[in-house]
């Protein structure tokens, strides 16, 4: 390998190595339009956001977490999971701690409604906990807030 290519690859590795760790039990992805971000804000829980840009440090979960994400993608639902989320779950440390999924979406997308969340639930063999539309109604916020509380309480009791 020519030295210049080696040097470049090292820089690249360093960029990947930059990590941020989180102990929060809710991790979410939201695109630039920020609807899911606003839902997460309304939940008023400690949470971490999966980075949008590839130059931002990689997120690593240190505690079990529920993943909240919207659905993107084409007509047949291919690539409905944002690539940033695939990258996040490709890290074994993260996917071993995922405990459940919550999906945001729009029923206008028919069979693709919350497809990304359904796919991740199936792929990681964890429950799909809840689905809501766009940035969620006040009822959605209440149900998710209460639901997560019960969910984590049960989890901790089962562990004892």
């Amino acid at each position, binding site marked *: 390998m020519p030295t210049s290519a080696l040097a470049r690859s090292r820089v690249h590795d360093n960029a990947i190595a930059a990590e941020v760790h989180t102990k929060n039990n809710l991790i979410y992805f939201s*695109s*630039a*339009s920020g*609807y899911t971000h*606003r839902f997460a804000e309304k939940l008023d829980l400690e949470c971490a956001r999966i980075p949008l840009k590839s130059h931002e440090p990689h997120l690593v979960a240190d505690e079990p977490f529920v993943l909240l994400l919207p659905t*993107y993608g*084409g*007509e047949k*639902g*291919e*690539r*409905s*999971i944002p*690539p940033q989320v*695939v990258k996040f*779950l*490709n890290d*074994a440390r993260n*996917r071993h701690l995922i405990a*459940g999924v919550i999906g945001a979406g*729009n*029923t*206008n*997308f*028919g*069979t693709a*409604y*919350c*497809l990304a969340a*359904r*796919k991740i*639930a*199936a*792929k990681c*063999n964890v*429950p*799909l*906990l*809840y*689905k809501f*539309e*766009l*940035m969620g*109604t*006040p*009822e959605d916020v209440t*149900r*998710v807030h*209460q*639901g*997560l509380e*019960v*969910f984590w309480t049960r989890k901790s009791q089962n562990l004892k």
Partner: protein
Amino acid sequence: MTEKLKLAGHVEAINWNRIQDDKDVEVWNRLVNNFWLPEKIPLSNDVQSWNTLTEAEKLLTMRVFTGLTLLDTLQGTVGAVSLIPDAITPHEEAVYTNIAFMESVHAKSYSSIFSTLASTKDIDEAFRWSTENENLQKKAQIIESYYYGEDPLKRKIASTLLESFLFYSGFYLPMYWSSRAKLTNTADLIRLIIRDEAVHGYYIGYKFQKGLEKVSEERRQELKDYTFELMFELYENEVQYTHDLYDGVGLAEDVKKFLHYNANKALMNLGYEAMFPASVTDVNPAILSALSPNADENHDFFSGSGSSYVIGKAVNTEDEDWDF
């Protein structure tokens, strides 16, 4: 209306290799991938089903579709085009031209439905009704007056409310027929339109919110008040229109729930909180499931009855770039 629409003031060659807003590319790609034409739907398979409808049901269906045709025509020829001069990026302009064209495809596809199912005389009669129905004309006029107005952000509000709210008094009916296994091919076509309108409403609403970032707090408040006032004005009119159409078949109350539900989504597309409480947005589950078979949401995991969710439903999980 005879006023001239404003055109984009200054045009430079569009460079798709210099992107200012990733959303423009994302939405452009989404719209291109979603492209369809009515010819791909086998509408003629609905002829038999159409013949099982009563005369009143046929008349209602024709009227609903002429109403939708009017809105799509308005959005294709005026609405989406009126957004171009105020685009923040050249790629945003290109997305609006795509939206405008697709609205014209939607408008044309209702004619495909008509020509497959009805006689020329009945078609002409339905179009005549659409020009004479006061409430239908009024909703088009309210929106049109903002398209010709001076305020670019208000144009986006009007456009998003049209895309995400005003269509739904009409969209209800093909979903209703579909839930009763009638006109199912027509419903397939309408679902494609519904999907497109969601992308349009999302994008225009997103650009509205980008615009809000650049204005004063006072102006933001003004636009928020304006949005809710316009929503109320349109809602009142939609209720009247819904009664005009659906009273004869006894569905008006059911349609209104669908209106509330979609009004909330329209507001959310603009970044505002839902306005109608859950007690009036409980859309008939049959309608919701005709819209999205995965919206069967009375049993979520949190409520304790969602055991079926523990095991992921049959979805193809392998079309992503997994490493595991």
